[in-house]
């Protein structure tokens, strides 16, 4: 039922946009920092409802690319099209309001706020109460608060953290903090969820839980998901399409099987990774 709801909401954008099959299209994105080209002329699409991954060696420009999507960086050139709409140069808060949410590689929770407050902040762009209505505590504001808290608890429950709703984020253990980051991102009702190394530092048990959880999320909320990940088990097991970056360039794209067999990828990434881990 929720899928139908969401599909109805996004239907106009889909029909009006020429590339309606894609929730996000990056067209020739280049990000230059002085002399350093972190991302070089990358074209990239995320199919609606798909789970896609970006992989690449350290410093390949993956997180930089993430930051251009979420508006933290304005790309030096290129266009970012989300739901048929040019979002290049839009502020991070507006991009979140449009329906893109993210997590961070190095956990960036609001450490001294409770888990529930973190999720409530995630809902910020979906809440409407003004300062004045908050001071007056209008009926509408109260109702919105109650609903937001119910929804917050609900989201915490889906990531298995409802017991810690009133606990400060910083006092949660590592794995729980990672899950709270996802919960916080879900607060904004995203259409596209960007996960920056969600399994970093997790044990194999937690990792396989998270893989299942991400799959569930996608179907339950009809999300599109973009993943940066180093754990090849996660990447290969989860993604439908994989894009490989190396020195800011896109060197390969395709299904997990195709990417695995691509000699350039093996040379640039898997070969090197194999020698390191082996």
């Amino acid at each position, binding site marked *: 039922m929720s899928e139908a709801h*969401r599909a109805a909401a996004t239907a106009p954008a889909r029909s009006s946009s020429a590339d309606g099959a894609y929730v996000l299209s990056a067209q020739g994105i280049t990000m230059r920092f002085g002399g350093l080209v972190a991302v070089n002329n990358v074209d990239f699409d995320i199919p609606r409802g798909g789970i896609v991954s970006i992989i690449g060696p350290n410093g390949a420009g993956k997180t930089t690319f993430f930051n251009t999507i979420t508006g933290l960086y304005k790309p030096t050139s290129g266009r970012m099209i989300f739901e048929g709409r040019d979002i290049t140069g839009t502020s*991070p*808060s507006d991009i*979140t309001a449009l329906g893109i949410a993210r997590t961070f590689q190095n956990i960036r929770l609001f450490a*001294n706020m409770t888990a529930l407050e973190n999720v409530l902040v995630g809902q910020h762009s979906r809440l409407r109460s003004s300062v004045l209505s908050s001071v007056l505590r209008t009926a509408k504001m109260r109702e919105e608060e109650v609903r937001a808290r119910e929804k917050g608890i609900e989201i915490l*429950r889906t990531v298995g953290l409802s017991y810690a709703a009133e606990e400060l984020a910083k006092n949660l*253990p590592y794995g729980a903090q990672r899950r709270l980051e996802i919960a916080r991102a879900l607060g904004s009702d995203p259409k596209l969820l960007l996960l920056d190394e969600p399994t970093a530092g997790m044990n194999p048990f937690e990792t396989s839980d998270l893989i299942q959880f991400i799959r569930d999320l996608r179907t339950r909320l009809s999300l599109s998901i973009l993943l940066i990940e180093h754990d090849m088990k996660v990447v290969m097991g989860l993604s439908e399409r994989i894009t490989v970056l190396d020195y800011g360039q896109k060197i390969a794209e395709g299904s997990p099987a195709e990417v695995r067999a691509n000699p350039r990828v093996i040379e640039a990434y898997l070969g090197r990774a194999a020698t390191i881990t082996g």
Partner: protein
Amino acid sequence: MQRTANSPQTAGSGSLFPAPKKASRSSMIVAGVLSVFLLLLPVPQLLSEAGIVRLPIRFDQAFLNAAADTAAFTLLALGLNIVVGYAGLLDLGYAAFFAIGTYSYAILASSLFDLHVPFWIMLIVSGIITALFGVVFGAPTLRLRGDYLAIVTLGFGEIVPIFILNLDQLTGGTNGIAGVDKPAIGSIIIGANNDNISFYYLGLLLIALVVFIINRLRDSRMGRAWMAIREDELAAATMGINTTTAKLWAFGLGAALSGFAGTFYGSHLGFASPGQFSFSQSVLILCMVILGGMGNLWGVMLGAVVIYLLQTVVLIQFPTWISNLAKDTDLDFLVNFNQNVRLTDYTFFIYGIILVLFMLFRPEGLISSRRRKLELHPESEKISDQERQDLYDVRETNQSDTDVKGSQP
């Protein structure tokens, strides 16, 4: 599941978590006792005036005079707490807004230009004027973070008193503005004939109003946005918070409260002079916020009372107390001490020592917010135990969650 949370079927689950936090019973009792105490504070004075009891000389008008000024500084501390305690913006020039608030009232409600705008209207007008200045100062500077913002606000704190000093046609320059109006209700003038009692009550009333407003803001969308910015500005922006707007609100509201305080202070003193708003005042107010307990309303108010009384009563009276004690007890070492050491030279030294000791032993402030207490004295062991348990339960929990949802109509 996000959609279902909005649907009427699950609306009944509100009982699971009563939304707006209710104050606990014990804090209600403390608040009750405290307000009765504060309300009864002037009673000895009244009895003494009526000739029923005789009070010690020290307990005269000066005491309630200090109490009324304390009320003004409490308002200031509450205002700065929004900026520093909630939004985490280190403002070292808060006295600038205090100055603008006081002068707004002094200019518009004194015989200087023969304008006599009523106090009650000026409360709002000064609030608006200072809020505007807050936004004007804030807009170009709030993109700065941490130390840089502190330096810029420090600059504003220096610039404003100098401006006031030199705009002598508007502000009376070094002479200041005398004969500032007292508040009036109809024909009754509050604080006529140096009546500090009514001023004291007026101060309490204003504080109650401000606490009421801030208390509601803290648990609102904007309050959470401020705290998120304090914690991690970049993450806050990524979560959909327009950080510039939220910071401007904090700065503007904080400034508006200093306009409130300035109007009250100016009308109580009946005088405004540029020397009242130096850097040390900014630091004084900041000390109140930090020492009292950043982010905690009760703490900040207690901090204001403690520091103001420490500075204006205890430290000034301290040498007299010691010399009296030496005279009364006739203990050799006290007499010697009193003859050889001029304690008046050491007041700021003692003040400093007290501040340092405080920060060493109670870094979270007199009354810490739950948040700060958890931050500085984490009870993480308990939760990590729970988490270890949870790790093994998470699969089951997720399973049973979906079961529960599935069984719902």
